């Protein structure tokens, strides 16, 4: 059957929209200074900041992408959560937050300015701002395409309406509004996905039944087949996994990306800021069950009643539409179709549209009513990701670009106004990027590749900056550039198996190494970037004059007093909570090893 949302489903979605906007309107009167708008007046309790920390990262691409990855690789996808997020979240909370929060920096680039120099901040601020608006555009495009394919909604209307709602509540209520809505969205995503997992698991006969149906041992173990890259569907071995994903990429994202760090900076005290990512780590640990399991289930269940809706929407024409949407698909995951409506094939095998795994699960298991809630969860994840990008962008733009380079001496009211204006034009650029992506898919692939190169070395800079007082501004800046160049060079000289030189790598000419998968190539690109940045930063720092220690107080580990924890109960101490998370994490890895 075609997923036909009824009145009840639309009522649920509209009710959600009304609440989201209402929160923005009520908060408007609290936005008096730029600090209120960009940093929530540093007054957010730890649990709220913690859930927002998690939710800001939980965009639609995360929900859809992890479902797709679950369908493709199985339970090993949980590495992206268990080792690829949680340890870094604990680290940023326990060890790095004292410098982010304690230095009173208003953004991550501003910390770089305090610790290093203007050029390092400028490089990070500009690359971050550009990256944020474009990745927001990419996810808008993905969501618009999805809603169009799944429900027959108009692409333009779908992304325009969601962008306008996000625009309204973030420009009215600033970061507080984004954070409050992220908490709401967190509960919606959880409450929308639990029944999906429940019904799916019940249908296949629980975890045992799912294992039996998947009938591929490598897809139901996370570590057992990581010994060699040929043994598991990801094509990655344990070293690349640990070093590339768990260390470089994960720490690079969770410890340095302003999108998430901003939520902790808004917390109401130093201990609350340190607890923020640690609190977020608890739900993060169980999210694999909500987002990965649906993808895995989608690969093994069937439904005769799902049919092709694309002919009705004029996406494909004529004869191709006569054949079933799912011919050649796997479970309820349909094949990918080209513009003419024929299944895309590679090496004689049909290419599956894995991104539809989770959405198809909603259509398969949710009756009208619950379907509204499920769609709401999907739209909520989309909006929370977009709002996260928007608030991070308007802060970096206003404080680190506009106030630093364009207009240094304006009144606080002017910067508050500029923050609202940046919200508008940031979203406008994202929207344009989404429409460009619709026409020229490759442009954004290239952009995302460039962003990956810029991001990969970041953690080396922050780690050296925070824990080695000898690191200098010149070392940091040239190290970052060198790390980016190392990433681009490694990527340009290698290819994943079966790919042609171009956006997939190998553009520099000679192919020195062929990786078993794109994922392996990405992990190793990150490793090269990190090592390049680390080495270059150390060498140049040793060759340049150090900053006097006086200036580095509160910015570097060895020159900063340990945070006071005297009056705290055991469950309020970030380090104690982190140890509990680590024990649970170890248990989860053992159970699903």
């Amino acid at each position, binding site marked *: 059957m075609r997923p036909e949302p009824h009145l*009840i489903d639309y009522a649920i979605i509209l009710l959600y929209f009304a609440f989201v906007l209402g929160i923005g309107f009520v908060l408007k009167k609290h936005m008096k200074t730029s600090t209120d708008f960009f940093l929530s007046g540093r007054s957010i309790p730890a649990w709220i900041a913690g859930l927002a920390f998690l939710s800001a990262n939980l965009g639609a691409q995360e929900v859809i992408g992890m479902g797709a990855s679950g369908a493709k690789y199985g339970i090993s996808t949980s590495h992206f959560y268990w080792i690829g997020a949680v340890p870094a979240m604990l680290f940023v909370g326990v060890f790095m937050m004292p410098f982010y929060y304690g230095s009173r920096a208003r953004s991550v680039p501003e910390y770089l300015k305090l610790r290093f120099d203007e050029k390092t901040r400028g490089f990070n601020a500009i690359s971050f701002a550009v990256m944020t608006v474009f990745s927001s555009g990419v996810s808008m495009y993905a969501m618009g395409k999805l809603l169009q394919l799944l429900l027959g909604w108009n692409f333009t209307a779908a992304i325009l309406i969601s962008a306008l709602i996000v625009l309204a509540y973030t420009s009215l209520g600033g970061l507080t509004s984004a954070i409050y809505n992220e908490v*709401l969205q967190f*509960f919606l995503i959880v*409450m929308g996905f639990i*029944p999906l997992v429940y019904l799916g698991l019940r249908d296949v006969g629980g975890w045992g039944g799912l294992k039996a149906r998947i009938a591929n041992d490598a897809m139901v173990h996370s570590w057992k087949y990581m010994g060699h890259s040929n043994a598991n569907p990801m094509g990655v071995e344990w070293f690349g996994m640990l070093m590339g994903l768990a260390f470089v990429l994960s720490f690079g994202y969770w410890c340095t990306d302003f999108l998430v760090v901003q939520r902790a900076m808004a917390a109401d005290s130093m201990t609350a800021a340190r607890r923020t990512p640690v609190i977020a780590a608890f739900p993060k640990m169980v999210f694999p069950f909500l987002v990965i399991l649906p993808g895995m289930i989608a690969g093994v269940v069937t439904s005769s009643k799902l049919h092709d809706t694309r002919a009705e929407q004029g996406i494909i024409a004529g004869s191709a539409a006569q054949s079933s949407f799912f011919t050649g698909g796997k479970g309820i995951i349909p094949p990918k179709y080209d513009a003419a409506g024929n299944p895309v094939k590679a090496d004689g095998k049909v290419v599956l549209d894995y991104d539809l795994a989770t959405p198809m699960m909603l259509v398969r298991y949710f009756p009208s*009513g619950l379907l509204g809630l499920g769609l709401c969860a999907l739209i909520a994840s989309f909006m929370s990701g977009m709002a996260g990008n928007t608030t991070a962008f308007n802060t970096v733009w206003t404080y680190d670009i506009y106030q630093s380079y364009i207009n240094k001496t304006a009144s606080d009211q002017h910067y508050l106004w500029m923050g609202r204006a940046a919200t508008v034009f940031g979203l406008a650029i994202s929207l344009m990027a989404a429409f460009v992506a619709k026409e020229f898919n490759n442009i954004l692939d290239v952009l995302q590749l460039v962003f990956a190169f810029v991001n990969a070395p970041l953690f080396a800079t922050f780690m050296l900056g925070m824990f080695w007082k000898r690191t200098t501004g010149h070392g940091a800046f040239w190290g970052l550039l060198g790390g980016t160049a190392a990433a681009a060079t490694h990527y340009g000289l290698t290819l994943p198996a079966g790919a042609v030189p171009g956006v997939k790598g190998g553009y520099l000419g000679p192919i020195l190494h062929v990786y078993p998968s794109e994922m392996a190539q990405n992990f190793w690109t990150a490793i090269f970037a990190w090592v390049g940045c680390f080495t270059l930063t150390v060498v140049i720092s040793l060759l340049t004059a150090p900053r006097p220690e006086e200036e580095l107080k509160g910015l570097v580990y060895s020159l900063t007093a340990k945070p006071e924890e005297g009056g705290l109960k055991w469950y309020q101490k970030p380090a104690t909570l982190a140890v509990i998370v680590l024990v649970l994490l170890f248990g989860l890895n053992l159970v699903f090893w």
Partner: protein
Amino acid sequence: MGFDIRMPIGMLFTLFGILLIGYGAATQGSAMYAEHSLGVNMNVWWGGVLLVFGLAMIGLTRMRR
């Protein structure tokens, strides 16, 4: 700052719960439950969970004061 976020969350989920329970009761025995949710009227059941969750959130707001 502002207001207690648990209040709007509680209100929204309470309304969702009432809507789903009402819709589920009205569509009891509909073929869509057999087709989608394994014969279970998930609207009523999950609506109930949402209602309890929503009321609990509102209750937490009250307790604080």
